[in-house]
């Protein structure tokens, strides 16, 4: 469904991605783990078209998208939940959700779509007239995910949904991600530093080091992998 081959992205002269190869198949949850600065967010921004790839191809449903503008890519069905949530803090919860429906005039089904988001995250329904900035971190993350869902994506790109959120809410958010995948048939590409959670959730996973994919396999395989345990998982270093 989404095929990334040999993608290289630069920030000025600094190379962030050094030839990334990666596949996401229809209906999967794919996780990408890696340390700070490995290029995880850059990869997502490159898929979304916010950063442009200097080399390589990104093919979505048989169409090359590496040179498309970000809003065209969203129209095609790839929506990103950016790192740090980036909700519109001075707009209300409902306005934030409406902006998610901005792409492609999908506002016609707005009432139904928004109901689905409220069913998924009931807390947003209670707070719909509140400003985005007054929500807690976890609620903001829910809002960011809900906002992305409003564009009816085929693939949802999630950038560190557990960042800066209370552990209890992290579980809840990972559960909702699973729900979105299973019940709404949305393919998930998840980028995480919380490697354990991300690998437990994933059908397949990749490890990104210095802008290159070094290890790939099923989520369970990677959880058992000694190198990964040592580098990314808690307590792994003791072995």
């Amino acid at each position, binding site marked *: 469904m989404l095929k990334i081959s040999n993608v290289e992205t630069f920030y000025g002269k600094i190379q962030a991605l050094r030839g990334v190869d990666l596949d996401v198949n229809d209906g999967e949850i794919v996780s990408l783990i890696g340390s700070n600065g490995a290029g995880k967010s850059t990869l997502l921004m490159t898929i*979304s*078209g*916010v950063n442009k790839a200097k080399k390589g191809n990104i093919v979505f449903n048989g169409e090359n998208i590496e040179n498309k*503008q*970000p*809003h065209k*890519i*969203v*129209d095609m069905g790839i*929506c*990103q*939940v*950016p790192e740090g949530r*980036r*909700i*519109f*803090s*001075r*707009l*209300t919860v*409902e*306005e934030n959700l*409406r*902006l*998610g429906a*901005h*792409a*492609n005039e999908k*506002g016609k089904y707005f009432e139904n779509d928004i109901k689905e988001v409220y069913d998924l995250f009931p807390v947003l329904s209670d707070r*719909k*007239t509140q*400003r985005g900035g007054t929500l807690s971190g976890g609620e903001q993350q829910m809002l960011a995910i809900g*906002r*992305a869902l409003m*564009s009816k994506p085929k693939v949802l790109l999630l950038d560190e949904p557990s960042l800066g959120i209370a552990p209890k809410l992290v579980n809840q958010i990972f559960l909702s991600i699973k729900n979105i995948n299973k019940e709404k048939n949305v393919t998930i590409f998840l980028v995480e530093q919380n490697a354990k959670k991300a690998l437990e959730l994933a059908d397949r996973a990749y490890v990104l080091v210095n802008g290159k994919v070094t290890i790939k396999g099923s989520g369970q395989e990677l959880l058992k992998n000694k190198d990964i345990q040592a580098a990314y998982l808690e307590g792994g270093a003791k072995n």
Partner: protein
Amino acid sequence: MEKKDIIQSFKDSLFTGLIALALFGPIVGLRTASKGEGLFITPQWGVVFLLVGLCILGRFLINLNSARKTEITFFSKFSSKFSAITEDKAKHFAITAILFAVVFPFLPFTDRYFMDVAIMILTYIMLGWGLNIVVGLAGLLDLGYVAFYAVGAYSYALIATTFGWSFWICLPLAGVFAAFFGILLGFPVLRLRGDYLAIVTLGFGEIIRIILINWYEVTNGPDGITGIPRPSFFGLPFKRSPDEGETSFHLFFNLEYSTMHRIIFLYYLILVLALITNYFTLKIRKLPVGRAWEALREDEIACKSLGVNPTNTKLTAFAIGAMFGGFAGSFFATRQAFISPESFTFIESAIIVAIVVLGGMGSQTGVVLASIFLIGITEMFRDLEQYRMIAFGGAMVLIMVFKPKGILANRKPTILMHGDKK
């Protein structure tokens, strides 16, 4: 309040005094006077000390006021009362204000002077509302807004004097021209934000003014354009003795001729134009494009990742903001009957930006209050002649001290769900 705080604020105000001394010393202290042959310097240190003293005292009082935040002082009581009135009852305020504006020309104390000031205030309100689309909603700081005002005024003046078309045809044309210039400015600044955007727009405003001065064949340069047709009341001119085959306004309605008819008509014209601007802004805010403007102001990256096209969104904001500037410009041209580049200097842009910022960015009512406050105060002190700019500056300082986020800082959510409290 502790002794330490008092000493601290005293030190701070002394420092302010030093700055004031450095400023006022040469500017006010050394006065040149011509006596016989040549200029001589007459020092006037008394005035300098008075001014410096006022600065120290003012600063000290402000410090005291802000140090005692929890205690209710006269000023904070006043300002909180003020905001309570305007925020809670914004709707009532708006209706009352519009009603007052409608009956204003027929109130017993309203004379020619009041009408002129009111027309001026309304023009600035309209400009403020127009700029509010760009600055308040889309968050693009435009310091050259007067350029579109100028484009509107010159478009109207040139079309009306060349082709002799009526105001009602020229007005939309002027708006279209201004919108076109808005897009013209929009393209090169698409990638810019904040300070950089402000500098380029500032330059754009100056470019337009300099073109107006130098393109003599078309704009008549610094001499300006004279004999711009006055607006007619839907075909009925405001003249004492109409031309052959024409009926003038007072004859048609069987009234005694009065120059006030035209003034009152102009007043209602700008009132309607301004209200259209306001209505349009309030409506477009609830449409996808308006929401996209506000989202773009908050976070451009998030917008991109959600499929908002930032290019189109920014260009529409510039174009629509410019269009209203153009409308205001053609009104200005028809009211003055004479325009020259002198009317479109940077200070005009600065005043409009000041109205939007002091009103509270994005607040429609705030723009009204700030216009009345700033333009009204400058007018009230017209007798002080050159010192009235001090009143203008003073008004700005007062707003920034007591209402640092603008007179009405709170933006109301544009969506309230059914069953929510109104």
